[in-house]
Each structure stands twice: as structure tokens, then as C-alpha cells.
């Protein structure tokens, strides 16, 4: 029970994401049903894959009748960033038991990662167990609503009024997470390299430009940090 405070803190921090999760889960349900998937297949995507962007890419390519292997390669490429999240979370959640890590991995969606890493960076003294409790709190209002919204979209059809700019819920919620992360010059430089790199490498297929931009941005951030600490000299 000692961890319940961290769980509920995470729950509270994850709750605003319902604003994004519900419309997008519903839209996926609607689009998948219109593409000809039955409700089990639509739910199969949202429960087994649990990654909106990759699901939409796979569905789009299935509608275009791309070969199965190409569909898999393209949609998995979209999820390659998850390996970066996994590495980034490892110093924080690596020491927990194997089965807990396997649960963390299943629920590793963008919002869960971003909210958790923001918290871990702000509270470096948090114990591993508390970090796990916080993570589970964050995913609770994110992942179950994703399943329910997908089901509602598939079963009930068009309930989202057309023409509303709901697509923009995604950038707004991520901006709310990114801005507080810009604590040092190194973080700001990394973010700028990420943006410029994404624009420069946008010609690359399968969203691979994002990975190149992210790798360069991580190197830029690390290099700025190294130089800043060297300039400060030994303490």
C-alpha cells in the first residue's frame, strides 16, 4: 500500500490523455470497420498492438493491398522509436522483476513513456518500486480507454462530428509534456536538432527520418552536456 500514492499521482498525470485517446481510439474503430475488419480483428489491433500510429499505417497499407511483409515492415518501422523508449526507461525500471518489466513493455505507449520519464527526471530520488507504481498509474487511464474507445468506434460507427480539429489533440498533449522537459540548454538543443532533423530527413520512407533525427538529437544533447560540465571544471 506504500506505493498507492505514487500510483494515484501517476493516474492523475495520465488522466488528461483521455482527451486524445478516446477520439483516436474511436476513429481507429470506425476506419478499421469501414475498411472491412470485423470487431475481433479491430480489437485485436488495439489490444495486441496498442500503438495508434502503427495501427493506422498498417490499416492504410492493407486497404491499398500491399503485401503482408511490406505492411509489417512499414508499421514496425513506425514503432522502432519504442526501442529508444525501452533503452531510456532501462536505467529507471531495469532493476524490477522480469514479469513486471514484461508488463511495463506491453503498456509502453508514447504518453506513458513521456509522462513517466518527465516524472523520473524531476524526482531522481524515487525508488524503483515507486517508479513502477507511478508508471502503472499513468497507463491506467490511457490504455483501457484506448480499448473501449476502439470498441465504441467499431460498434457504434460515426459518433465524432466531422470537421472538428481533433487531430490536433495529439500535438497539444505532447507539447504539454515536452516543454517542461526543456530544463537545460542541452535539452533545448536536442529538441531543436530533432525538429530540424525531422524536416531535413522527411524524404526517408517509413518514417525512418524520425529515427535519424532522434539519433542526431541525442548526440547533440549529450555533447552539449559534456562540454557544459567540462567548462564548469572539476568540483
Amino acid at each position: 500500500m506504500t506505493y498507492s500514492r505514487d500510483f494515484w499521482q501517476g493516474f492523475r498525470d495520465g488522466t488528461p490523455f483521455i482527451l486524445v485517446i478516446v477520439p483516436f481510439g474511436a476513429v481507429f474503430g470506425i476506419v478499421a470497420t469501414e475498411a472491412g475488419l470485423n470487431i475481433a480483428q479491430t480489437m485485436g489491433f488495439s489490444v495486441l498492438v496498442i500503438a495508434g500510429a502503427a495501427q493506422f499505417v498498417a490499416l492504410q497499407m492493407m486497404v491499398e493491398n500491399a503485401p503482408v511483409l511490406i505492411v509489417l515492415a512499414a508499421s514496425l518501422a513506425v514503432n522502432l522509436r519504442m526501442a529508444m523508449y525501452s533503452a531510456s526507461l532501462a536505467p529507471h525500471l531495469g532493476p524490477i522483476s522480469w514479469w513486471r518489466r514484461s508488463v511495463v513493455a506491453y503498456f509502453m505507449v508514447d504518453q506513458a513513456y513521456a509522462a513517466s520519464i518527465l516524472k523520473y527526471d524531476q524526482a531522481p530520488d524515487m525508488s524503483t518500486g515507486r517508479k513502477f507504481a507511478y508508471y502503472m498509474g499513468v497507463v491506467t487511464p490511457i490504455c483501457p480507454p484506448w480499448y473501449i474507445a476502439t470498441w465504441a468506434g467499431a460498434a457504434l460507427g460515426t459518433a465524432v462530428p466531422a470537421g472538428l480539429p481533433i487531430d490536433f489533440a495529439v500535438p497539444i498533449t505532447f507539447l504539454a509534456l515536452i516543454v517542461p522537459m526543456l530544463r537545460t540548454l542541452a535539452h533545448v538543443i536536442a529538441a531543436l536538432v530533432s525538429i530540424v532533423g525531422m524536416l531535413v530527413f522527411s524524404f526517408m520512407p517509413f518514417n525512418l527520418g524520425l529515427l535519424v533525427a532522434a539519433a542526431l538529437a541525442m548526440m547533440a544533447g549529450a555533447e552539449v552536456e559534456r562540454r557544459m560540465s567540462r567548462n564548469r571544471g572539476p568540483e
Partner: protein
Amino acid sequence: MSFTTTQIWTVIVGLGLGSYLLRLSFLGIIGNRDLPEWVLRHLRYTAVAVMPGMITPLILFPQASGGELDPVRLGAALATVAISLWTKNAVLTIFGGAAVLFALHFGIG
């Protein structure tokens, strides 16, 4: 779509399993082993290296407006950043950003 039931489930299970292995990868392999300082230094910037790039095209070239720069969405993005810097509160930022988005949408959209 001309996919058979087997092909549809192959995509679902293949993508699900592949995504799961990507998510588990480093978390599973590294476990509680200590990483060298230079690796940790790079990993500290993962979030700010991936997320800004990920949302840049959504802000500058939204598909909903045919990939054209859209004053409603750009204005809402700038307002969201300003609210975040001002309030330092994620919930207020998200609701504030959404309020500006809808105000601009119905005001000038």
C-alpha cells in the same frame, strides 16, 4: 481490401509481437546492469530527441488541412507552448491549448 482472414491476423499478431519485442528489448536485456556514463548521457535526451520531431509534421503540415500550414493549428500550438511556460501545469496546458484551438477554429476557421 483483398486480404484473407489469415493475412489480416498475420498482420495483427506479427505487428503486435514485433512491437512488444521492440518495447521489451533494452528493458529486458539491460535489466539492472549498470550502463556506461556516455550511454546514460545519450539516453537522458531520448524524450526530447524523439517527441519534438514526431509532432513537427503534425503541427506544420497537418493532413486534415491537406498538408498546408494552417493558422488555426499553428496558433493553437504556439498558445500551448506559452501556456505551458506560464502555468507549468500539464492539465491546464492541455485544456488551455484545446480551448485556444476551438476558439480559433470557430473564430476564424
